[in-house]
């Protein structure tokens, strides 16, 4: 089993585990159709599943790895498939499960409440992230449905190279140092870790390459803060960055896109559903599968800060949350109209550089990012990052304090400028980037010299730990996962006891006795005779009449008819 650190197999037509998130609350054994094997932030995933008690039934989830072997009792009790006919890799190498205690103390991770309508993993996301060969295997629902159970289980196992566990010390600064600094117990484990590989040196090379950035997932928050048609260019700016990050592999579920106005379907747009970045209309940055998470009136300072700091209302859907963790590289791109120390939102409110810096600090304290790249394209953009004080933040701006950021590409057909200069050249640069390219941040700093931009782009790297020369563009703009595909297959037999035959069994008694019917759409008679609103209780008329009769009778009985004249 070579270099598999962690593989999780989930069964289900439409249940996926993706990244560090588990889509379903607990993956049901009944959903046996397809396996998705992936390995990411092993500990987080395992912790969550353990907390949900997902290891009680066999064949729910299988974790295995070749380096760290599981304590025997865990292996035998929890993860061993009970079905003997199931030919699995030797159970000797299962993942070390964290104890529940460890899970409680684990990081600033927050698992959002399962809201029942967890967004299904999107096909585009799979395509965006996995290599093309993998995509053909997992092509969303249609294929899955087409290849449903009777074709046998469709199995592909992805071997995932080892990822650093957040607290093991491997992540930062190479392998040997991380091991040496640990206690003897973990040292021996580390040794085992090393020796289990065919050639340590080969592995070390790969590991170094892999751990250079230290992140396991990528997120992007792209904000356009300007409303009204004449700010077309700001929407185009944001969309061009969106296009680039999506092209380089960040899935839509990891992008929070905020657009303050709708330019694509604006009545003034002569070509609806398009936003172009260039006069020659080559590149429709809007695309055919855009997903805007916050739009028009939703783009407010409050919502932006809530997204960053994670203080969203409990019923907020997943697509409107930034679910990053301490292994996330976060790209934040903002554009709009700004001034010295502020950025306007929708022409009605502002965010100041102090507020932004404090929000980033809160993110850092809540372990919501590992490294952050902040880019702003606005007038006097450099003023927005000068107050930052949180670690691991790299910032770029289109112009220095006192300078305007200028627009580019006036288009006579729509009557406004298509883009801003800085983002135009950034897009031009990003179009050359592909997932494997080695371009680094220094190249990005050089993108728009003053001769092209008119303004002077600025950058700030003093808070950032690494040398910008070693930071790949794809560390922030892409989501390049080191995935290796094998053709090795494992045949698993479905677990019958929990295969969802309950349908079949209780099918008969489910039927209702009396036939159902459709409601009349306009039941005139029923509407007219609809009961009026229930009033407060009133004694019935007969009762009141009787009471008066009684009073009168008592009166006459007492005084007789002759006293009548005194009454009236």
């Amino acid at each position: 089993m070579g270099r598999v650190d962690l593989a999780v197999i989930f069964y289900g037509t439409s249940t996926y585990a993706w990244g560090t998130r588990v889509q379903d609350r607990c993956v049901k054994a009944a959903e046996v159709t397809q396996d998705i094997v992936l390995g990411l932030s092993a500990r987080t995933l395992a912790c969550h599943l353990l907390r949900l008690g997902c290891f009680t039934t066999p064949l729910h989830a299988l974790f295995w790895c070749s380096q760290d072997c599981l304590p025997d009792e865990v292996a035998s009790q929890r993860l061993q498939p009970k079905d003997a006919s199931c030919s699995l890799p030797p159970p000797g190498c299962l993942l070390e499960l964290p104890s529940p205690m460890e899970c409680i103390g684990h990081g600033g991770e927050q698992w959002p409440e399962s809201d029942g309508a967890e967004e299904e993993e999107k096909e585009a996301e799979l395509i965006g992230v996995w290599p093309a060969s993998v995509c053909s295997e997992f092509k969303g629902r249609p294929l899955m449905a087409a290849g449903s159970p009777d074709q046998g289980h469709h199995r592909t196992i992805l071997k995932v190279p080892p990822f650093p566990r957040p607290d093991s010390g491997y992540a930062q600064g190479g392998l040997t140092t991380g091991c040496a600094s640990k206690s003897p117990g973990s040292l021996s484990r580390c040794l085992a870790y090393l020796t289990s590989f065919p050639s340590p040196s080969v592995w070390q090379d790969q590991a170094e390459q892999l751990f250079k950035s230290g992140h396991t997932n990528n997120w992007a928050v792209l904000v356009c803060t300007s409303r009204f048609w004449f700010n077309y260019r700001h929407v185009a700016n944001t969309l061009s960055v969106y296009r680039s990050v999506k092209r380089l592999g960040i899935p839509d579920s990891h992008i929070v896109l905020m657009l303050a106005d709708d330019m694509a379907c604006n009545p003034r747009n002569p070509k609806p559903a398009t936003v172009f970045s260039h006069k020659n209309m080559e590149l429709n940055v809007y695309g055919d599968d855009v997903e805007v998470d916050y739009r028009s009136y939703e783009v407010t300072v409050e919502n932006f800060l809530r997204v960053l700091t994670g203080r969203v209302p409990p019923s907020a859907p997943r697509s409107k949350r930034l679910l990053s963790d301490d292994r996330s590289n976060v790209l934040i791109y903002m554009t709009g109209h700004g001034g010295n120390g502020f950025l306007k939102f929708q022409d009605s409110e502002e965010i100041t550089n102090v507020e932004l810096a404090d929000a980033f600090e809160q993110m850092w304290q809540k372990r919501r990012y590992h490294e952050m790249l902040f880019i702003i394209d606005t007038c006097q953009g450099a003023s927005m990052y000068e107050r930052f004080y949180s670690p691991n933040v790299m910032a770029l701006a289109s112009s220095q304090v006192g300078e305007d950021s200028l627009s580019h590409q006036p288009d006579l057909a729509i009557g406004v400028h298509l883009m801003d200069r800085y983002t135009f050249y950034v897009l031009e640069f990003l179009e050359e980037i592909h997932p494997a390219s080695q371009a680094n941040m220094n190249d990005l700093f050089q993108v728009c010299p003053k001769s092209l931009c008119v303004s002077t782009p600025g950058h700030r790297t003093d808070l950032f730990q690494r040398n910008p020369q070693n930071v790949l563009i794809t560390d922030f703009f892409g989501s390049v996962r080191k995935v290796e595909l094998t053709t090795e297959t494992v045949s698993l037999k479905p677990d019958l006891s929990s295969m969802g035959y309950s349908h079949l069994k209780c099918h008969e008694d489910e039927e209702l006795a009396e036939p159902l019917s459709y409601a009349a759409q306009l039941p005139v008679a029923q509407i007219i005779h609809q009961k009026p609103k229930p009033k407060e209780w009133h004694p019935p008329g007969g009762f009141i009449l009787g009471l008066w009769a009684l009073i009168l009778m008592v009166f006459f009985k007492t005084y007789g008819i002759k006293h009548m004249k005194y009454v009236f």
Partner: protein
Amino acid sequence: MAMAAPLVLHLLLALLLGLGGQSRAEPERDSLREELVLTPLPSGDVSATFQFRTRWDSELQREGVSHYRLFPKVLGQLISKYSVQELHLSLTQGFWRTRFWGQPFLQAPAGAELWVWFQNSVADVDKSWKELSNILSGIFCASLNFIDSTNTVTPTASFKPLGLANGTNHHFLRYAVLPREVVCTENLTPWKKLLPCSSKAGLSVLLKAERLFHTSYHSQAVHIRPVCRDAHCVSVSWELRQTLTVVFDAYTTGQGKKDWSLFRMFSRTITEACPLASQSYVYVDISRNGQENESLEVSPPPTSTYQAVILGDRKTYAVYDLLNLATFSGSRSLNLQLKWRQLQDIGSQLVPFLHAQRYVSGYGLQKGELSTVLHNTHPYRAFPVLLLETVPWYLRLYVHTLAITTKGKENKPSYIHYQPAQDRLRPHLLEMLIQLPANSVTKVSIQFERALLKWTEYTPDPNHGFYVSPSVLSALVPNLVGAKPANWEESPLFSTMFPTSDSSSYFVRLYTEPLLVNLPTPDFSMPYNVICLTCTVVAVCYGSFYNLLTRTFHLEEPKRSRLVRWLANIIRRIRGVPPV
């Protein structure tokens, strides 16, 4: 014991069969039908209605349903989690012009509309409604999270459930419209992803954003409802209907010709049916109202035609079965074309029996009047219309000015329900059942006063105005020809949107235009101006006054040198003035 033994055997058999694969033991419990209806409209436009129906013979409400095949899991989970009985969501750009385009199969108001019937078991309907709309906003990338108590109503008589329902207690119904909602590609993307074939195969390949939004009317919707599983109707199946209606302006783009083809409208042609679909049809409306049949020509010639009474009138449709390979014979793809032999006079069209319009009148920023005009063009039959108006709280309705007049006389509604608004809490709700006499125009008007908002309650673009959601008309319109009740499962999808009860009339739900009302808008830079002005005033007045109050004034003897004084005294002595 004798009873139990076969049961055990049966179970065992089922389990054994299941071992090989459940689909062999059990037929598929879900099915997909896809359908496209192309209707040349009287005005020269062409409407295209896509319908994708997923039917699932399963109890979705029960927890634990986890094996999803065609039915999207997102929506399935939503139904079970929030105990939804019925869900209807539509996102629309543009306005269906009933007067010129005729009755639609299913109209939707501009913007977003959501109405949901919850199960009787839901304890806190408002909470479920709020959470549901939040989640739907995430699924469909729409701002449905703006649905709150200020735009939600509970209609008492309108919006009866479209699916199976035993008892309709309107307390479990919630209805909201967001007229401001923009509909664009980001709404279409998640909608397409719900389709079993996505946009990869079948009719959905035609759904390309740059064409669909280049239209006069674009409406996409999701309808979930329980339907009868079979003719006996003792058990429930769940139906998910995804509909998309677009109206292309063929007349203007075709240089005055009303001819159209699939390729010209969608810039694509149909190459195959969705492989997962059990039925895949394209219908083209070729019925001509009282004209000879040779006036138009469809190519390729249809293999069969379908005749039925649709929306009260007898219609003929050319049918193309995409699962039948003969449809694609000759060429790989199906590019439907329609040519008119002779130019049809646009003026001689048939006006639909019911249409309505709505406007706001009055001048100034204080008062105004909302008017809805209902037309019954039927020559001899009266029919009832249920009118529902939702007005936001910042328009304060004067209910005593409510006037319903038909032919100059007052028309008393047979049912009226009014729920007054509460500021910042709930909107006005007005429901009326009005009898429209034959060949008449009825005007419903009510006056209102504009409220002042707090300055944080204004939108970022307050001068654009504030939208008032459209009135909803539900009516039983008499049929022109008698209709026979058809089998639901066998008739095309476009004819089975509303359950029909009698053969003499059909049910329509129409929406009027949304209204845009200007509210008195303050000058938002005023606070800054006020601050600047007051600061200046304070600085000038208070500053000088303070200066005066705190200073002490005293005379100071001028100190001059002795020489000066001596010189001055000499001069004074000369002048005859006492010396200083």
